């Protein structure tokens, strides 16, 4: 507990700094790129709660993200709900799906669980494609509300996403350092032994899938306002699954810092590659970066740092 308060303090400072940055209105492009990177901080952190701490590899990240986004689309279309409502609702709906896959863990482990989440993503995408109200396969344009703070809606979204990222990281950090995190680590190492040592494994798994799902949904909820056009192919893009997995791997999965580092690194690389390299080579670079990182930094950046420090 003693270390939670300072962490909260740091979080608040980060958000305030973000707001200050927003009011300063430096180059607007930075907010756009920053938004995407922060969105990946949330996604990677959320994924890591289940995948890194608990050892259950979720391939269905796109499903949760898209569920958050489409919940928002539905609420915007039906009742023009304000952004906070969208975020909470998107999170809750995705959390429900998380709870659902939590029950899958009763029977499925390892690869089987991963493939099941992938299957879930396909099923969900098909449902969205056939649901005309939210645009079906044609997609839907979303009109941003007028008169946002800071003059520009994306600058506003940037600060919102910064806040969400801080919340996600704080949640992850709290989990990691509580009995929940230790219990998850135990069940990651050996589920049967954990259960026999009194760890309520099912409850912990349900908690992890739900909270992970919630945060993934939260990451997706502002997405419609960011792109202003949502369609299934990009909302369910494989990129989210790859990034959600790769970012914590690159950063390091055992600590909350890992996904943040990974998201910032890989996210920035992707953003930079997109807007500096005017050809398909931008994707090649992302591929090479992925390969290079996992080959050269076996335990993630964190592991690398620890090793270098250990040597000195």
């Amino acid at each position: 507990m003693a270390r939670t308060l300072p962490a909260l303090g740091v979080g608040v400072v980060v958000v305030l700094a973000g707001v200050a940055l927003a009011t300063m209105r430096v180059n607007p492009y930075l907010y756009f790129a920053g938004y995407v990177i922060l969105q990946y901080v949330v996604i990677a952190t959320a994924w890591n709660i289940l995948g890194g701490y608990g050892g259950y590899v979720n391939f269905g990240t796109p499903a949760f993200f898209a569920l958050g986004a489409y919940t928002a689309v539905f609420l915007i279309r039906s009742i023009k709900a304000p952004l906070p409502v969208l975020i909470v609702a998107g999170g809750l709906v995705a959390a429900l799906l998380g709870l659902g896959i939590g029950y899958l863990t009763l029977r499925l482990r390892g690869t089987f669980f991963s493939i099941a989440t992938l299957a879930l993503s396909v099923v969900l995408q098909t449902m969205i494609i056939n649901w005309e109200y939210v645009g079906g396969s044609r997609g839907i344009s979303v009109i941003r509300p007028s008169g946002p703070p800071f003059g520009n809606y994306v600058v506003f979204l940037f600060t919102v996403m910064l806040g969400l990222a801080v919340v996600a990281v704080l949640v992850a950090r709290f989990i990691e350092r509580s009995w929940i995190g230790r219990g998850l680590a135990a069940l990651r190492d050996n589920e049967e032994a954990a259960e026999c040592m009194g760890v309520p494994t099912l409850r912990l798994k349900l908690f992890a899938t739900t909270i992970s799902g919630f945060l993934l949904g939260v990451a997706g909820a502002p997405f419609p306002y960011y792109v202003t056009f949502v369609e299934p192919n990009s909302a369910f893009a494989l990129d989210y699954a790859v990034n959600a997995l790769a970012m914590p791997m690159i950063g390091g999965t055992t600590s909350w810092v890992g996904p943040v580092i990974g998201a910032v690194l890989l996210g920035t690389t992707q953003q930079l590659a997109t807007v500096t390299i005017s050809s398909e080579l931008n994707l090649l670079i992302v591929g090479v970066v992925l390969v290079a990182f996992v080959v050269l930094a076996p335990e993630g950046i964190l592991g690398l740092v620890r090793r270098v420090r250990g040597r000195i």
Partner: protein
Amino acid sequence: PVARAADPIKLGFGMALTGGLSANGKPALLAVEIWKDDVNKKGGLLGRPVQLIYYDDQTNPSTVPGIYTKLLDVDKVDLVISGYGTNLIAPLMPIAMERKLTVMGMFGLANNEKYQYPNYFQIQPAGPDPQTSTAIGFFELAARQNPKPQTVAIVGADAEYPQNALVGARELIKRYGLKTVYDKTYPPSTVDYTPIVRAIKATNPDIVFVASYPPDSVGMLRAAHEVGLQPKIFGGGMVGLMFTTVMTSMGSMLNGVVNYDFWAPEPPFLAIPGIKEFLKEYQARAEKAGVDPLGYYLPPYSYALVQVLGQAVEATKGLDQQKIADHIRATEFNTIVGKVKFGKNGEWAKGRTLMVQYQKISGNSIDQFRGPGKKVVLYPDEFKSGNLIYPYAAALK
């Protein structure tokens, strides 16, 4: 700072160089590059050279806001055009509106219906009623046949363009008093189309309208041959059949298909000034760029799109976005695809989506597709270059 005469005019855009739409995005890029070279050869715009700044949008709409903000705020481009395709135009609209830009849309279907932004202009010749534009010629032709077909089957992929085409088709079916006997969609990743085709055949329709992307266009057509589906008219909105690689590979299997198109090497189009030079240049550069070797489908329009923009800049003698837009709205332009006049919502004032029929194709040589006679234009009447072989089975022989 005041722009010096030698400072380039920067034209910025995102383009699908990877992902699902790159087969169209890359040729579009080449066309724009050819235009830039042409313009610069003639001394540029306003005496300043034109420079292109573009990025790969990966056919993913979520990259578009970032790309255009970068273009506008970091690269400080003077003019923007959209990337290729409806889904990539949609996220650009709010940015353009917020910054009051003139934006040229490259093949977007009904993007402006929701926004009604006056400074948006779109080059696909869909006309004032975009939704029905793909199918209108198809059903119009069907209605002219004797005896008039009664029943129709429509089928399409669960994706943006096919779904729009199907919506239009359903409306036209109502308008022409036809009876729908089959109306279903399939996922774009379908591998086997024979069950679908067989189910359609079981309903015994007079006409079959297909709205599909390239892999499914090929799949549907092959399956139709294998299953022996022979309605009186077959085709409609099958994207990809006009791609050179597809045409040469499919060969005679294309015969008889009635399909939408935008351009065909038929006399009415070849007569337009500038087109031959463009195609020559395009075909010379196509292989190196790794794009469609003939460029008969979209590239002329992509070129025309920047032609319009360039002409407007020259005419308004500046880069004032509002003045450029006002000029485009008011003027009829001469381009390599003919006269272009924009109307409601920035669409062509009068639609010009073609309906063509593949005829007398044999073997797989590319050369047969270079000249007239293989892709006969049936609709609209002012571009007509041949007659419909009816019914479909007759064209198969």
